[in-house]
């Protein structure tokens, strides 16, 4: 037996991560469009419990790359093991979720295999028998189409949230099979030291009902007062996009986005935030999204419910007054 579409799993706290399930959904969709089977590859050490969980995720096969050299993630270890599995199994497609780990090793793997990787795709569509993969360029302002040519395998990573994990078709039980990998051939040159939480997350914004979030458009730390007044008027928690936290204008534990917190409040009020992908992934499931930005083409307006194109230094004080008048 062999698999046509190989999805590479990632674990979190000993279970399959949600983004892995999203990647399986991508594989199931592609499999149904192309009439191909889907398998899931687990890498790590002592994978038997995880393998049972994986077998129930609606895949034909679960492949295991189980080795002590894979207990901790390293780019050399993962790329080396995957290269061997891919060369032996010869799938048509290898699918990943575009996590920080995948960003670290998938381009290396692609180069080692001499095969293309389309990274961070937001969806695909079929043109005849061939999928066209779509990814964003210019920080989400423009979409770009890519086809894949030459001999398989083709490598594709999908952005977190590109596919909905709730759409998983978890029918049947996949067969579990160990792969033959020779890890003596793989030299691991980096040494993993400790993993730690950078900032004690003192604020849990995931439970906030209303959030006022501020971006680069605020320009100076003195101007933060303006946003604090808006937050007070709306009885909202205050948060920010990455540049504002990098500059120290708000503590790091108030950062929203891929490297910060993921939130889904009833109201997300974005002030001077252009809406780079890294920010959007952290807040796109919010109920009502308001955006105030001077750039009418800012991507934040693509996901906002209400937009105001204008100078936030004029608009925000007026909003504070208008909100207070209605309380």
């Amino acid at each position, binding site marked *: 037996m062999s698999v046509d579409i190989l999805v590479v799993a990632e674990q979190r706290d000993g279970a399959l991560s949600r983004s892995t399930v999203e990647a399986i959904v991508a594989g199931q969709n592609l499999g149904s469009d192309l009439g191909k089977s889907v398998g899931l590859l687990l890498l790590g050490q002592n994978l038997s419990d995880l393998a049972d969980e994986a077998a129930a995720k609606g895949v034909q096969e679960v492949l295991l790359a189980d080795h002590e050299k894979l207990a901790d993630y390293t780019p050399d270890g993962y790329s080396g093991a995957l290269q061997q599995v891919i060369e032996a199994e010869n799938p048509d497609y290898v699918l990943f979720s575009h996590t920080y780990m995948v960003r670290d090793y998938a381009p290396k793997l692609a180069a080692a295999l001499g095969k293309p990787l389309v990274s961070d795709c937001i969806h695909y569509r079929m043109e005849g028998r061939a999928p066209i993969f779509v990814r964003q360029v210019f920080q989400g302002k423009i979409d770009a189409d890519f086809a894949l040519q030459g001999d398989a395998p083709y490598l594709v990573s999908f952005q977190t949230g590109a596919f909905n994990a709730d759409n998983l078709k978890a029918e049947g039980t996949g067969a579990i099979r160990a792969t033959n990998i020779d890890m003596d051939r793989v030299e691991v040159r980096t040494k993993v030291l400790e993993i730690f939480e950078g900032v004690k997350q003192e604020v849990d914004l995931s439970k906030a009902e209303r959030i006022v979030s501020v971006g680069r458009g605020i320009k100076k730390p003195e101007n933060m007062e303006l946003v604090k007044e808006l937050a007070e008027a709306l009885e909202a928690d205050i948060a920010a996009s990455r540049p504002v936290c990098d500059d120290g204008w708000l503590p790091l534990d108030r950062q929203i986005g891929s*490297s910060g917190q993921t939130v889904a409040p009833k109201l997300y009020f974005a002030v001077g935030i252009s809406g780079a992908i890294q920010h959007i992934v952290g807040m796109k499931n919010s109920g009502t999204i308001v955006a105030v930005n001077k750039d009418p083409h800012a991507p934040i307006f693509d996901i906002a419910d209400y937009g105001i194109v204008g100078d936030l230094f004029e608009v925000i004080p007026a909003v504070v007054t208008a909100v207070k008048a209605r309380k």
Partner: protein
Amino acid sequence: MKIIVCMKQVPVKDSLLKIKDDNSWVHEDELNYEINESDHYALETALRLKEAHGGEVVILTMGPERVKEAIKQGLAKGADRALYINNADFTSIDPMTNAKVLAAAISPETPDLVLAGLQTDDNGSGQTGVILAENLGLPHTSIVMEIEKLDNGIKVKRELESGWFQWIELPLPALLTIQSGINQIRYATIKGIMMAKKKEVKELALSDLGLSGADVAAGSTGLDFQKVYVPEKTKQALILEGDPKDVAEQLADKLKNEAKVF
């Protein structure tokens, strides 16, 4: 320590991008350019390492004539010299192709450390640096937030998701991709700007790198870039119109009565 910093010029943030009629790319001639943000941090990282441990900082960039402005800026900030690949005869958004060309320029330099930004603000594939490591046979770490020099290598702090980090030890030579915000970027001094004029900028054509047009031909890696276009909006924001007071009143009404969020 000899450090090579890969830098790219990208359109200035918030540029108004216009797509060409044939959807092949955006109109580039009307845009202003700046050093890609994370590449700028990579340069600053290199300069700090040199100040602490000695050595040389070499800028490597590729692009049309305009990228010489980025080189000038980098040299004014303190880089020692620059390698400039003039790609007048080819442009590619394929990271594998670009990494092949960059690797050919880096190899003869035998650096101790290669730094690159973690991704560009234009194409944004986030692949070129990592592919470069594989092409050069170097160990790498991506998304680096801190670097410590050890006796026999380096120790780096890598950013993970959701506010987590990891310390990793690597031997040298190595390649790192640098995250924005790792440090505070310096301004060039007048003295630096004056000194930059005397620094070496070595211009390289594909043939100088032992490469031919076939090596960089579009689609040669299997990646077939087809077109760019403005994304279909899945959700249409209601854009409120009027002077600041008007829009504020409208918004407060909508939030209170339609969305019922306060």
